[in-house]
């Protein structure tokens, strides 16, 4: 499989909904798609990263209305364990058609839950829409706190928006201050588990989206599955998005491909290096587990 995965079309897009754009990280693709799918009855509810009990700490939640969706819009640069609610949504909430958004690893987990539903009773046919977001690597909450409070010298609760782009991690505060730090300094706060990830643009999602490759305020969208294609066509017909062909925007698909290749090459090297991380007494290599080979 190509580093960008299989896809039916790649488009640069932006939501036409002003309320969503105000809250969204970039083009508001995920929020708009869920709002459309809720409206149309394609999904009964969605598992998203809602507000948590600490500033910028996401808490997975099941949303069933657009207002709840809006409260969850925007990116928080730390993981929200959305998969933890998958049986809650399908069984406790009794939703027959569930939407879920996640990073590439979470979409992988979703597909594994469908293909090998070992502890996932009655889940496999209820995932109606799995939306993926591009992800280079992720931070623990404490790591994010260190970046914002120690490196950028801002209080978590005073931050209005965080953004990654152009080689910098940027923090915007409520009162208008802007703090930045070079991206390469955040690497020590990245979760170790992210260094074995071989997926950048959520190859197994129905639709995946992220800012890379499109101009500011727009997102690059990959429409991948049959299901995703139907939802995307419907959303376009309903006027949810304005779109531009990928070959007419800067920096374009080449940048997405470049970053995907970088991530996968780097992490594949790490996966390989883990095989021989240590030595046994007789000099033969001692390795760490490789999840891509066996349990």
């Amino acid at each position: 499989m190509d580093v960008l995965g299989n896809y039916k079309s790649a488009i640069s897009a932006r939501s036409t909904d002003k309320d969503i754009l105000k809250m969204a990280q970039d083009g508001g693709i995920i929020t708009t798609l869920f709002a459309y799918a809720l409206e149309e009855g394609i999904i009964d509810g969605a598992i998203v990263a809602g507000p948590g009990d600490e500033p910028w700490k996401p808490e997975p939640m099941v949303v069933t209305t657009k207002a709840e969706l809006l409260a969850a819009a925007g990116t928080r640069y730390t993981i929200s364990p959305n998969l933890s609610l998958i049986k809650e949504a399908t069984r406790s909430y009794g939703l027959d058609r569930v939407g879920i958004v996640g990073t590439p690893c979470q979409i992988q987990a979703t597909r594994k839950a469908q293909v090998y539903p070992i502890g996932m009773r009655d889940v496999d046919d209820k995932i109606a829409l799995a939306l993926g977001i591009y992800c280079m690597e992720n931070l623990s909450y404490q790591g994010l706190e260190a970046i914002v409070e120690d490196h950028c010298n801002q209080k978590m609760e005073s931050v209005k928006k965080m953004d990654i782009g152009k080689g910098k991690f940027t923090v915007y505060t409520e009162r208008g201050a802007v703090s930045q730090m070079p991206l390469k300094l955040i690497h020590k706060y990245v979760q170790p588990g992210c260094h074995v990830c071989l997926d950048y643009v959520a190859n197994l999602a129905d639709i995946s989206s992220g800012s890379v490759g499109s101009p500011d305020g727009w997102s690059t969208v990959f429409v991948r599955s049959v299901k995703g294609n139907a939802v995307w066509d419907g959303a376009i017909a309903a006027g949810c998005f304005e779109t531009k062909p990928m070959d007419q925007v800067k920096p374009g698909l080449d940048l997405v491909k470049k970053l995907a290749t970088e991530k996968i090459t780097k992490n594949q090297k790490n996966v390989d290096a883990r095989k021989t991380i240590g030595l046994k007494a007789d000099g033969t290599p001692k390795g760490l587990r490789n999840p891509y080979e066996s349990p």
Partner: protein
Amino acid sequence: MKPAASQPQTKPEVKPEAKPAASQPQAKPEAKPEVKTARSKPHRKPEVKPEEKSAATVAQAKPAVKPSDVIVEEKVEVVRKEEKPVAEKITIGELHLSGCTGCLVTLADNYEGLFKLLDDYADLVYALTLVDTRHVPEMDVCLVEGSCCLDDKLSVQELKEAREKSKILVGYGACAAYGNITRFCRGGQWNQPGQEAFVPISEIVDVDLYIPSCPPCPQQVRNVAVMAYLLLRGNDEQKQLATAYLTPLMQLAQRGNEACGCDLMYDVINQGLCMGCGTCAGTCPVRAITMEYGKPNVNRDQCIKCGACYAQCPRSWFNFDVMNNYEGIMDAIKGAMQ
């Protein structure tokens, strides 16, 4: 079939002699091929015919000796009526050891899917309450439910017999695979207070494949049944798919018979593999796992040692050869069940 201990990837040695290659899961070959080549272990279905024929020949041979052949002939007719005009199905049985019957109920929880399975893909030849067979028969796939009680000689004996008589032996559910709650047994329970030694079945026999979790998932046992059918009856391409699909579940059986929420610590987090997706917390049947600051926290007193969290974790295994084709596989299974 015995599992290849060193190479779990190798597919089971069972190679049914070249069958009509076009047996798609949806399509039924109209007639069962009459000619059966001799094999080391004839499975259940072909066995019926020779028996029936020999019964018939006996019936014809008898009049020379005794005139009381009328009853015997009637018996033969009854057998013929039960013959079904279907494709060559595999045979599945369920051996019930020390379990709560939840695994068996799970099989039935496929609802109309169970009927479809039994109509087109598998004959259920042995199962508590569902099949009127007293003694462990020959079968292609034996699902073993429950751990094995060492204090009950019959359990040990039946388990060994099931191993000998089945091509694929499955640790079906957490008790068979990992012991599950029977790991906590100390004896003294009604109505067998003297029984206290319960072990996962792999302590007694070689196990080919695990389906963990308590209870197991109806869709998972359905998928395994369809894949076992493709493995034993399908064409080369289908066999390849089934082998790829079943491999991690076979590797899981090779991995060991101890499971616990600790696996998430030892084999995922301690190995630098956890990225906090939340799957383990979502899958735990007793809600023993919560996500604290992005990582699983296991309440070990609550954990029943069912193995679901580790098996479901995308970082316990993730086989791209199967998962990249998730859409095709799910459509194929859906198609097979219609």
